[in-house]
């Protein structure tokens, strides 16, 4: 209720601006003024193929993974213009969950200053600063994250990535469960940011919404620069590979910085209706 009201106010403020700018329209070739929307679309993949939950794929660690879950948190989005000018999306609104099982693939950004953007930066997970601000700052995001399996069950942290399924390897022909839960804890900060170049400029205009199509390769989580062999991370009973802490999370944090690539940018995606 409060939020809607605020949005209306902001919207009316912006429409006011638009009106006031329209004077210049005829004198310039193109007005890059006002505000528009933009979208990041996360297309999840697995070692070069599309990610299909329940499907199998063998990776360079010689392990065959059947992925049953891939959820992750995208945060602190920044759009960057050619000259380096950065538009930092308002922090309070800048936490999103991508979920393959939940069919949640888009990060929708509103009220971006019109412009030509050539890079995008975002965080994977929740930054320490945010976390330490406590629950007030996090507002509903904690509940939303909990509902999407993105909070730890025994401590008050977020899971940045929840990657689960089964695997077989040379050592186990019978599939065993794996759970990779990336996150920070009070000893290690595993939040990382990535900056990606856009192959085509993303045009944000009052009536044009670019869609930045990003491929997220889930296999890179365990099979990037750092190789995390699941069968070497079994519990003592040998029934399950749970990677939820320790050095592995630091290695995974490094891998996740390579997991995202921009495939293409759709421009002109029509005027987006609020």
């Amino acid at each position: 209720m409060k939020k809607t009201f605020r949005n209306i106010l902001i919207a009316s403020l912006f429409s006011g601006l638009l009106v006031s700018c329209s004077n210049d329209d005829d004198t310039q070739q193109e007005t890059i003024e006002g505000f528009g929307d933009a979208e990041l679309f996360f297309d999840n993949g697995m070692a070069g193929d599309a990610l299909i939950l329940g499907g199998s794929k063998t990776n360079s660690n010689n392990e065959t993974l059947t992925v049953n879950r891939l959820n992750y948190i995208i945060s602190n989005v920044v759009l960057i213009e050619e000259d380096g000018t950065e538009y930092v999306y308002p922090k309070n609104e800048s936490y999103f969950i991508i979920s393959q099982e939940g069919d949640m693939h888009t990060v929708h950004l509103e009220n971006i200053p019109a412009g030509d953007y050539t890079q995008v930066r975002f965080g994977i997970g929740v930054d320490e600063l945010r976390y330490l601000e406590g629950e007030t700052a996090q507002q509903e995001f904690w509940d939303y994250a909990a509902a999407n399996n993105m909070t730890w069950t025994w401590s008050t942290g977020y899971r940045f990535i929840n990657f689960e399924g089964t695997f077989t390897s040379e050592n186990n022909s019978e599939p065993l469960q794996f759970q990779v839960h990336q996150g920070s804890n009070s000893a290690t900060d595993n939040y990382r940011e990535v900056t990606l170049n856009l192959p085509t400029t993303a045009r944000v205009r009052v009536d044009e919404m670019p869609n930045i199509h990003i491929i997220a390769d889930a296999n890179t989580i365990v099979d990037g620069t750092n190789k995390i062999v699941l069968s070497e991370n079994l519990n003592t009973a040998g029934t399950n590979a749970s990677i939820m802490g320790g050095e592995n999370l630091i290695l995974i944090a490094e891998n996740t910085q390579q997991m995202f690539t921009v495939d293409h940018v759709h421009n002109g995606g029509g005027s987006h209706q609020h």
Partner: protein
Amino acid sequence: MKKLQQLFIAATAAMFLFASCSKDDGYSGIPEDRPFNFEIPSNFPAMAQDIGNNMPTENGVALGRKLFYENKLSRDNTISCSFCHEQAYAFTHHGHDLSHGIDNLLGIRNAPAVQNMTFQSEYFYDGASNGIQLLSIVPIHNPVEMDESLPSIAAKLAEDDAYVQLFQSAFDDGEISSSNMLNALAQFMTVMISADSKYDKYVRNEPDGNMTQQELDGLSLFQNKCSVCHATDLFTDSKFRNNGLPPNPNLNDLGRHVVTGFENDKYKFKVPSLRNVALTKPYMHDGRFGSLESVLDFYSSGVQETQNLDPILQQNNTLGIPLSEEEKQALIAFLKTLTDETFITNPLFYEQT
């Protein structure tokens, strides 16, 4: 541009505050909110938590107290925080080595005292949380403690008029939300300060602070042998250490390792505060010792060289802290001076209906 937007947000927020305030005053009958007056004891170190965005207010603390005693915080409405944290025992679970919670399920750890929380930087034996505003999530989510979720509690409380009014009187947005619940509990825990024991009066040169010779001997032994870990007038350094307890094979609790996953954190547990320690038996993370005598016997001759044993407990080729009978008695006499009657009988922390 951004500035303007913020201005507008601020203006809108202000309008809302205004609107909601004037609304409450109309019908709630709850006094207008004011800052809660609480003092930081002069012998304490600086606060370890930043409470700037959640300063205790009269109504916020009252709401936090009500929530602390509220059974609806558990899935089947049977368990409150106070079930395991009883005031008379400095908010510990009296008589239980391992706390039991919902469905009578047994937990794996002993409930520590809830006191002086804002002065500590890590919570729970393994550091499952390091923020006072978030920590209540841990027992609420724990399947053997309360097994509930925040949105579900909010929905239960919203059916109760008393809560509707209390939330309105305590928070600007007046909502029964996850964050307001956690903040109210945090405000209550912020004012749960224990600093009025005989020892405190002694160090602050206040009346009734006369220590006996035996107690003073105990204090100096403590300062020599214990205060590296049980540091400052909080009697904890908020760090994780292995004090050489033989691992309990039934539990195989790896302590700090559970949270961090680091090999060098195995068997490390948060150093507990020793305030009110004479009231908080049984002792250690699994409540294995029933008396302070047993604790000192352990430090004197029971410390084992397990993985990551703290270097302080293996100096000069000796394990532990050898103590004579006399020294043990003096230490116990000193530890008893940490009992704070004012804290355990303060009506501010009672259940009030």
